[in-house]
């Protein structure tokens, strides 16, 4: 049973990780993340990279949807914008340290444009508007061949870090993970500022927020800009990770995947975002592995894999919404509560 979490100074109260135990666990986690790629094969390292990218993108979407209440069905397209900006700049020899923020800014700029309708509409209507933006942007990716390489896609030169070329998944991991951690901390701090709190006020009731003196125009667009910036950075990293990309990657399904991730994890929570992204990334991999085992007894199993993934994906969304609407975060809290009170209450 945990006792004695007293806050005695303002610094202590404002700390992101207030207790020593939390900081200890955190240190351990960072150490683990640092050593992790040295002990695993290329496949696992690749999944870890993808995981980092998904966490960044899902965090961006959670800032927009979970914290500000602006539903977006076009998140994948913003990632695409980031990815193609990266391809364009990296092919012209711009170092990744500049490419990364520029890709984010480009996506953020476009996010502001797509976010403009959000000033008049919300809820389902906004969802439809962003859906339209998703299709239009993917159309642009396909047709604007001189920049995006059209249907054939583009290749992206490997990122160079201190003279090393980040060619394999193990080395790209050391680019992706720090960026992911940095952006997560930035997001955590965002919600301790006026801007972040304004986002939450807008989500809870935008008219009341306006009455309280929050400029809806600025803050809704800011939410779109920040969310899309995260998507753009995620897309940029995706480019450096795959180093060849086609428009087919940034489909509506990917946008829905991110929405599903933040719902399964927990809307309006960064920890929930991480849970959701991890869960939704690992699940298809688990399915794939189990199916490849199943082929020993049922040779036809791989042929139904993609439809099975689709079914499981859909049922997961439905199941969480119906039975656990606060997501994995709530499950996690329940487990924590159990141990905090143990052995006095089950």
């Amino acid at each position, binding site marked *: 049973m945990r006792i004695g979490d007293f806050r005695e100074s303002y610094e202590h109260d404002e700390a992101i990780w207030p207790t020593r135990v939390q900081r200890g666990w955190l240190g351990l986690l960072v150490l683990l993340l640092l050593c992790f790629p040295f002990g695993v094969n290329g496949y696992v390292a690749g999944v870890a990279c993808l995981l980092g990218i998904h966490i960044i993108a899902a965090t961006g979407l959670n800032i927009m949807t979970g914290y500000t209440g602006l*539903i977006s069905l076009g998140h994948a397209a913003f990632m695409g914008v980031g990815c193609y900006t990266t391809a364009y700049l990296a092919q012209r020899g711009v170092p990744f340290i500049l490419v990364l923020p520029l890709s984010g800014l480009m996506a953020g700029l476009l996010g502001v444009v797509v976010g403009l309708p959000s000033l008049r509409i919300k809820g389902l209507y906004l969802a439809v508007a962003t859906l339209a933006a998703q299709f239009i942007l993917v159309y642009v990716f396909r047709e604007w061949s001189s920049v995006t390489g059209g249907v054939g896609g583009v290749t992206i030169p490997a990122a160079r870090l201190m003279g090393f070329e980040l060619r394999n998944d193990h080395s790209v991991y050391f680019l992706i993970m720090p960026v992911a951690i940095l952006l997560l901390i930035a997001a955590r701090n965002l919600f301790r500022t006026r801007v972040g709190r304004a986002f939450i006020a807008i989500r809870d009731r935008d008219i009341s927020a306006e009455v309280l003196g929050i400029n809806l125009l600025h803050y809704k667009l800011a939410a779109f800009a920040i969310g899309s910036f995260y998507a753009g950075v995620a897309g940029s990293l995706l480019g450096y990770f795959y180093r060849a990309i086609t428009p087919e990657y940034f489909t509506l399904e990917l946008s829905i995947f991110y929405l599903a991730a933040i719902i399964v994890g927990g809307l309006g929570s960064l920890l929930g975002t991480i849970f959701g992204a991890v869960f939704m990334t690992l699940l298809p991999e688990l399915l794939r592995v189990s199916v490849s085992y199943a082929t020993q007894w049922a040779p036809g199993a791989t042929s139904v894999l993609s439809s099975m993934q689709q079914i*499981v994906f859909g049922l997961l969304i439905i199941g969480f919404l119906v039975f656990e609407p606060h997501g994995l975060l709530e499950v996690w809290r329940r487990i924590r509560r159990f141990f905090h009170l143990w052995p006095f209450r089950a």
Partner: protein
Amino acid sequence: MPLDFDWYELAEYAALGLLAGGLQALIALGFVLVYKGTGVINFAMGEFMMLGAYFFYTANVMWGIPALAALILSLLAVALVSALIEKAILRPLSGQPVISILMVTLGLASALGGGINAIWGGGHTYEMPALLPRTPLYLGDVFIPGQMIWSFLLAAAVILVFSLYFRYTATGVSMRAAASDPTTAYVLGVDVRATQRLTWMFAGVVGAVAGIIVAAITNLSPALGGVALGVLSVIILGGLDSIVGAIVAGLIIGLLESLTAGYLGGKVRDIVPYVIVLVILLIRPYGLFGTREIERL
């Protein structure tokens, strides 16, 4: 406009567009019914269309049941599936935030789509039997394929039947009452839950009919489900809760799509509906005939 402008070409595109618009209006009707009745945009509409078409194909071609009986059978099956979905998924979520309901229909779309792929094979395209007469119609030099005319007539008939149903039958009137004000309707003795279930069943049937017609014109493959997303532009233009709006907007969008496809090429056609959506949402978010929402604190 050039002097040698081909008016016949224009007339042909226009006629084809209007005829295709009838079908769009039918699909839009499926969306509008659900939105009006339960406040949900059903993103799984395309999958309902697919279900109808695949059920029909299975009954008619694989089991050899005559077309009319197969049609009735598949419509009943889809109605049953929609009722089950309403009962198991949408009912527990009523009153939840918009994003939950939006996502649940998206999840439903994924699960149904995956199920259809698993049963009938995702990459497989089936040749539908010729349901509609192919005899073309010539208006002067304007050539109109027979299938288009018959699909338009069928769509119009279905829409007409539903409109009459809502206008003149007791159930239809109580459904309208429940849609416009559930609480008052409930107080007056309307079984709101039953009407909502019926709404979903009707939407499923409308979707299934549309799916069978579309599959009969093109052919049967999972790509069928994508048609429904394009129809979102129709319901946004017409107004989410207006059946008249769905009809008018269906014709307008059909016309616009056909003209852009004819003059600007087929690729542009794919995004025309979405450009229209963005423009409408910026200028007139509640559509041509929709109810303007007034928000109060």
